[in-house]
């Protein structure tokens, strides 16, 4: 009589190479499909919208998202294997529908946004809900690479530009500069400056919000209150950074001339914006740490 071994399979007995192949193969096969599907989308974006000033943050957000997803690979692999087929296939249907409508009808919001649903559905089908929970931040972060609809951007940008222009005029007038304003046009000395969309737009705010959330994710505060307060305060911080940028450009033009203001220093002011925002976020975070430590 043959003895049947009814004990569970000892995973440690499976050679390492075989176990790795077992886990990686399904993901690699799915990745082929994902890359094949989205390659034309990102090729078009890199040759079009992402090459401009307005959506220049797109490729950076994509690269950071891929890095964040890669960083979470061990946790996804270690998560229990409980595929959620119903939710997964349902979400995939939604994602693919959005992709097909978006791609065929040139609706970038749907086309790029569908990637989040597709990745979430793949994770649900291949691994399960626990694995998806590990990926929440990279997936949320991907929202920042979705191009916003022009109508929405225009509607939001105009009041922001006016507010930035007003703040710059008030600040420089208070310290004695000969400045006046008409709408979003600043007149300083002999120079007339137009506060453009890129200077105070919603896209900049979007980029800075992404930067702030990435900072929060990297520093990993345990205090929920600290995370929430900081995430909310990124909006006024971004606005303040925009004001600093426009002030810098106005002063460069006033003191060094029109060429300096529109040349290399114009691009450098963009860097100033991001450095100022990051510095303000870190300073505010430090301030919050002191306040919350005192309270506790």
């Amino acid at each position, binding site marked *: 009589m043959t003895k049947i071994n009814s004990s569970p399979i000892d995973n440690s007995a499976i050679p390492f190479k075989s176990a790795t192949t*077992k886990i990686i*193969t*399904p*993901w690699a*096969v*799915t990745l*082929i*499909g*994902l890359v*094949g*599907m*989205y390659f*034309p989308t990102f090729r078009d974006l890199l040759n079009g919208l992402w090459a401009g000033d307005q959506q220049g943050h797109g490729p950076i957000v994509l690269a950071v998202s891929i890095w964040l997803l890669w960083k979470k690979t061990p946790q996804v692999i270690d998560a229990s*294997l409980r*595929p959620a087929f119903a939710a997964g296939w349902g979400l*995939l249907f939604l994602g*693919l529908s959005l*992709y*097909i409508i978006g*791609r*065929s*009808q*040139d609706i970038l919001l749907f086309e790029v946004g569908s990637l989040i649903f*597709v990745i979430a559905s*793949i994770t649900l*089908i*291949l691994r399960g809900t626990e694995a998806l929970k590990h990926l929440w931040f990279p997936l949320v972060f991907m929202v920042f690479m979705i191009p916003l609809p022009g109508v929405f951007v225009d509607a939001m940008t105009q009041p922001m530009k006016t507010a930035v222009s007003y703040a710059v005029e008030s600040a420089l007038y208070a310290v004695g500069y000969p400045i006046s304003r008409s709408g979003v046009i600043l007149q300083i000395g002999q120079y007339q400056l137009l506060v453009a969309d890129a200077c105070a737009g919603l896209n900049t705010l979007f980029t800075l919000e992404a930067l702030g959330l990435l900072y929060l994710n990297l520093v990993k505060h345990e205090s929920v209150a600290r995370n929430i307060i900081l995430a909310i305060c990124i909006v006024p911080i971004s606005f303040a950074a925009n004001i600093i940028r426009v002030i810098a450009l106005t002063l460069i033009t006033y003191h060094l001339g029109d060429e300096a203001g529109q040349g290399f220093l114009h691009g450098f002011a963009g860097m100033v914006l991001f450095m100022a925002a990051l510095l303000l976020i870190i300073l505010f975070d430090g301030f919050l740490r002191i306040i919350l430590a005192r309270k506790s």
Partner: protein
Amino acid sequence: MTRELTSAVTLCAIMLLSGFSANQIKPTNFMADTRGGIKISSIIPENFGAWKKNGLIYWGGQSTTAAIAR
């Protein structure tokens, strides 16, 4: 393993097919240039929802021909 691989192959096939289909019906795509492509807004007739009665075209409850005649 077999179940996971089956899911993965199915996912891969569905995604590639979706990508191919979307690109085929995309009007601006280089592959569709010679075939025209499909733009939903262009395949909807100009007077979508209109109906004919006694030789007149009605749209939105009013005869467009009658409106022109007036």
